[in-house]
């Protein structure tokens, strides 16, 4: 069965390693924090200026001055720090953040990503996404394999305005885990009960299937 959003987040949480500073985007990526093993040390960075983000506050304890990049009220963990926006992006641009997890509308087989604009329709802006994808070495995209019309989001070439070029290395969807290299999506794992055939049908870009593809363990 294809994964739901929590399932995708659970699988991505396994990519978070001890000692990592991690930047989580809005949407499915935010859920990843809920599933990170509690026996490892990880700090979550939010680009509006906090390192060491904690869970949402209890009702009545929210503070207007302490929010995440999604403008939600948050708390901080012991050892947390606050800083200005330029310092925040020094952490990102300077590659001090080890892992970036973000959503996308489209990903191409060469690692291009589009997630900020639908011409004539949606004009919200790129926020910090362009800085994140241009700088991070370790980027995981969390998204559904197809859009609401059932069309593949893993393409030969992005049709929407790009956020970054040749930057995505890994994609985790409701159907599969894929690695991007040598201008192709390499199938690494299938969601439980999902066949290679189903993944092939939902992938417009070049899909490389090498040998037996294991099911994800989540």
């Amino acid at each position: 069965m294809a994964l739901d959003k929590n399932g995708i987040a659970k699988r991505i949480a396994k990519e978070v390693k001890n000692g990592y500073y991690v930047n989580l985007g809005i949407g499915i990526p935010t859920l990843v924090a809920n599933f990170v093993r509690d026996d490892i040390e990880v700090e979550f960075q939010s680009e509006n200026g906090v390192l060491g983000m904690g869970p949402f506050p209890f009702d009545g304890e929210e503070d207007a001055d302490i929010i995440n990049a999604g403008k939600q009220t948050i708390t901080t963990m012991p050892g947390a720090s606050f800083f200005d926006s330029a310092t925040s992006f020094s952490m990102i641009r300077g590659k001090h953040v080890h892992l970036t997890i973000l959503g996308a509308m489209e990903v191409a087989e060469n690692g291009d990503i589009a997630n900020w604009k639908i011409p004539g329709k949606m004009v919200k802006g790129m926020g910090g996404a362009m800085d994140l994808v241009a700088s991070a070495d370790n980027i995981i995209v969390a998204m559904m394999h197809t859009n609401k019309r059932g069309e593949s989001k893993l393409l030969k070439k992005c049709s929407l305005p790009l956020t970054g070029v040749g930057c995505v290395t890994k994609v985790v969807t409701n159907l599969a885990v894929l690695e991007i290299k040598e201008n192709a999506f390499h199938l690494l794992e299938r969601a439980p009960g999902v066949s290679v055939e189903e993944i092939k049908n939902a992938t417009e870009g070049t899909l490389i299937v090498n040998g037996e593809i294991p099911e994800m363990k989540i």
Partner: protein
Amino acid sequence: MINKKVNNVEEALNGVKDGMTFMLGGFGLCGIPENAISELVKLNVRDVTCISNNAGVDDFGLGLLLQNKQIKKMISSYVGENDEFERQMLSGELEVELTPQGTLAEKCRAAQAGFPAFYTPAGFGTEVAEGKETRDFDGKMYVLEPAFKADFAFVKAWKGDAAGNLVFKGTARNFNANMCGAAKITVAEVEELVPVGELDPNQIHIPGIFVQRIFQGKNYEKRIEQRTVRQKN
């Protein structure tokens, strides 16, 4: 001590004119200069360019200036929470320059620090880089981005003193700290203006040299955009 204190928001905004470029601190509604924004609405200055990460919401923050059609151009990274903004942008009434958030912050910092421009990898190969100089450093491509030029920077801090020293709280520091000293005149409003000498020099986030005018703000609403809580058990 060089005294930067002014008595009220009216004095603080003296010299603000039509057609000027303003920087406004804040991320979403967190840390926005509420008093300065209210006064800009009252002064009804027109055709202004606003550099601000976001554009407020329909009825608060920079949304108030948008409702009043005072803004000619917005330079922001994310404008998703404002219907009036989207309407004015799609109809062409409002000019918008969407800028990657880290680039926006650095364009402020560059202006503060005296750099005319800098290279960043953000936006290379996208429409953000169109018409801009690009350059290869060690096999990676970068885009040349100029520093901002602004007439006024309006920032909000938690505490400050008459010397212009500022201390921020939580994530309300955001762009506020980077905009100090990045415009011809920096106006700081604070929740608490404390006597000079009370702030520990070791704990000051922005030294007073970057601030030209400071005043005790009032009636802070500090609206929360996305109140998100968990229940006890």
